[in-house]
């Protein structure tokens, strides 16, 4: 293999790609732009599993495979984040292996799409379990493409315990195995589930424990005001923004010829179709607590990457060309993106489609190399121009965090203070930035969080209490259970840094706290209040 080939198709190119991924992730970690409550939750479950392995591992909600994986590294938040980024990098390597096994002409294209996916970079830095599932899917794709389908089935069988929604692929995989009478694959698929279920039966003293204590609430907590504030359906503008935040070359799927794809790639695209359909529809009915966060869509990226990598790589050697329906398909998505852009801040989706249309024109004008290069440049631009639609950055998800910390600093000064908060990012943000070391943060556990933990954990074997105990030292700060947050348990002078949240009155009923709190720094999305002696009207 000569140097040029090694750079574009071999290990040298992969090494450069990984270096780029680590640099982008490192910068994101350093400036704290991706601090995210779901990422901290991944860390929290790893921490709980480290402190009480049985209670943590046999709580399906804890995403047991990754909680066990990260448990040894959970002592330091930064160590956990770097471990999480490394797992993301493993996904890139696995996808490179898949592309090679599938005979891609340029096997670096598919992992390049993943490594430069704005949402994948952000999710890897943030600690989101969604990117762990993506890495798992990359391994499945690699094993499947290398004709190690039984192993692929076994790995795929683990993934629903990391992200339940990827069970969609397990179902499609099972259908495919049935069609091909691949009984060993079919048998390997539930392997982890069976072993995990059997092992858990010993802990729970209940053979059907995995049904009695499922991984997610089948329906939300009754009368949870959170859902009244959060509309189920995502807007078209949000969907288009999310699509190009997954990867800006997503519209290039329109140029992929179905006939050119291998079995693994076709299975992957079927998965994308069913998966996206399900995730766009499920939030409307609030099933399994899905909201409209674009991060749920991350599992489609490896398969989009493989399909686009197959197509663009094939163009370079003139072994492939866009399908006949490429132009009408692209026109259709352009119309959708144009409509979506009416209520978006920037028409990023339409810009991505324009570049894909340029690539198509270049190919039709007998310049296939230019077409592939155009798509490569579009991929490269992802982290800089298309990240906003991912809605992952802290400044977008919790815009009032920085003002909250500033106001808090003004209120507490240098004196040691106890601060109660319902903002999950406050304690970690203070710790990582080194600001306000004089502050001890107590996290107010929300009523629906308590409900979920207690509904999904087994009280009969002491799991509920064991989990609470394991969380006591650190869960977004030192956790205070809803029933323990009362005026008689909060000292006069304590500070409350409160994010506007419709759930707050469930744990701090206004009638109970009336006259006992004084607003010292008002705001719309957050407020700082001080516990005072009872104020008589």
């Amino acid at each position, binding site marked *: 293999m000569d140097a040029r080939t090694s750079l574009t198709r071999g290990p040298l190119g992969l090494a450069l790609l990984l270096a780029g991924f680590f640099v982008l992730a490192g910068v994101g970690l350093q400036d704290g732009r991706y601090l995210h409550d779901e990422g901290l939750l991944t860390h929290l479950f790893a921490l709980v599993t480290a402190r009480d392995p049985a209670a943590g591992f046999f709580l399906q909600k804890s995403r047991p495979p990754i909680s066990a994986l990260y448990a040894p590294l959970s002592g330091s938040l930064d160590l956990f984040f770097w471990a999480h980024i490394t797992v993301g990098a493993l996904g890139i390597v696995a996808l490179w292996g898949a592309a090679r096994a599938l005979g891609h002409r340029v096997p670096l294209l598919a992992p390049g799409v993943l490594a430069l996916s704005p949402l994948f970079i952000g999710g890897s830095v943030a600690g989101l379990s969604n990117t762990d599932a993506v890495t798992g899917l990359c391994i499945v794709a690699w094993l499947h493409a290398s004709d190690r389908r039984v192993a692929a089935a076994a790995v795929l069988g683990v993934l629903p315990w990391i992200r339940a929604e990827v069970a969609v692929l397990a179902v499609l995989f099972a259908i495919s195995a049935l069609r091909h009478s691949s009984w060993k694959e079919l048998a390997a698929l539930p392997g982890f589930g069976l072993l995990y279920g059997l092992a858990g039966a010993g802990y729970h003293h209940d053979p059907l424990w995995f049904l009695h204590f499922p991984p997610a609430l089948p329906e939300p907590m009754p009368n949870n005001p959170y859902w009244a504030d959060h509309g189920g359906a995502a807007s078209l503008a949000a969907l288009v923004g999310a699509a190009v935040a997954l990867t800006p070359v997503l519209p290039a799927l329109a140029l992929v010829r179905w006939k050119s794809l291998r079995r693994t790639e076709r299975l992957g695209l079927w998965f994308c179709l069913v998966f996206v359909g399900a995730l766009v529809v499920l939030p409307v009915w609030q099933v399994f607590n899905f909201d409209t966060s674009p991060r749920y869509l991350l599992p489609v990226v490896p398969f989009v990457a493989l399909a686009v990598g197959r197509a663009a790589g094939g163009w370079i050697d003139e072994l492939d060309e866009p399908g006949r329906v490429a132009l009408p398909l692209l*026109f259709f998505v352009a119309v959708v993106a144009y409509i979506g852009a*009416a209520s978006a*801040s920037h028409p990023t989706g339409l810009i991505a*489609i324009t570049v894909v*249309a340029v690539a198509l024109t270049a190919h039709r004008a007998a310049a296939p190399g230019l077409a592939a290069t155009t798509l490569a440049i579009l991929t490269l631009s992802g982290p800089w121009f298309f990240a906003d639609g991912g809605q992952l950055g802290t400044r977008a998800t919790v*815009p009032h965090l920085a003002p909250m910390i500033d106001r808090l600093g003004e209120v507490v000064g240098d004196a040691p203070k106890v601060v109660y908060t319902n903002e999950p990012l406050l304690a970690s943000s203070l710790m990582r930035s080194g600001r306000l070391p004089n502050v001890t943060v107590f996290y107010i556990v929300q009523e629906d969080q308590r409900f979920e933990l207690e509904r999904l954990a087994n009280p009969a074997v002491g799991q509920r209490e064991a989990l609470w105990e394991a969380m006591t030292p650190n869960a977004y700060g030192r956790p205070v259970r809803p029933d323990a947050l009362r005026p008689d348990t909060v000292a006069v002078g304590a500070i409350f840094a409160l994010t506007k949240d419709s759930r707050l009155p469930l744990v701090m009923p206004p009638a109970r706290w009336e006259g006992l*709190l004084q607003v010292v720094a*008002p*705001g719309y999305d957050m*407020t700082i209040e001080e516990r005072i002696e009872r104020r008589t009207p």
Partner: protein
Amino acid sequence: MIWRWAPSALLCLLCIVGVAHRLGASAPQDRASRQQPAPPEAMALLDGLQVGEKLAGWTVLGITGPTDRVLRIDVAHDEIRFSISVAARGAVEYPAPRTTETYDLYYGHPHPRDTEIPESATRAIMAGIERRVRRNEASVEVPGMSADAP
């Protein structure tokens, strides 16, 4: 051969025109500005405040509502916008930065979303709105702001 690449080139052109059109279009209207304009009684409560008028150097973009017993005043300065809400007492369950006899005043909805509005601006504009409301609240009743409003 031109027929091979011309249709996709035409799509490129259409997309470029679409991008230019969307970029050139006015900033996306947020939820508030799609609401009903406020009734004359609301303008009277706000002491005749008009769209386009300046408040502490910020321009009033719109006065809308009431929605859920809350009037909303959108103000802008350069590319930054935010809103002042005049809420009937009890309509919003959070402590208000400013209050009058019968109304609670809030601010929020910054745009771009992660913008921190200068405190001096919020203080001055809120104080101005509060003075206007105090002058008129005893004599003006705004439909849709009372506790029994639908």
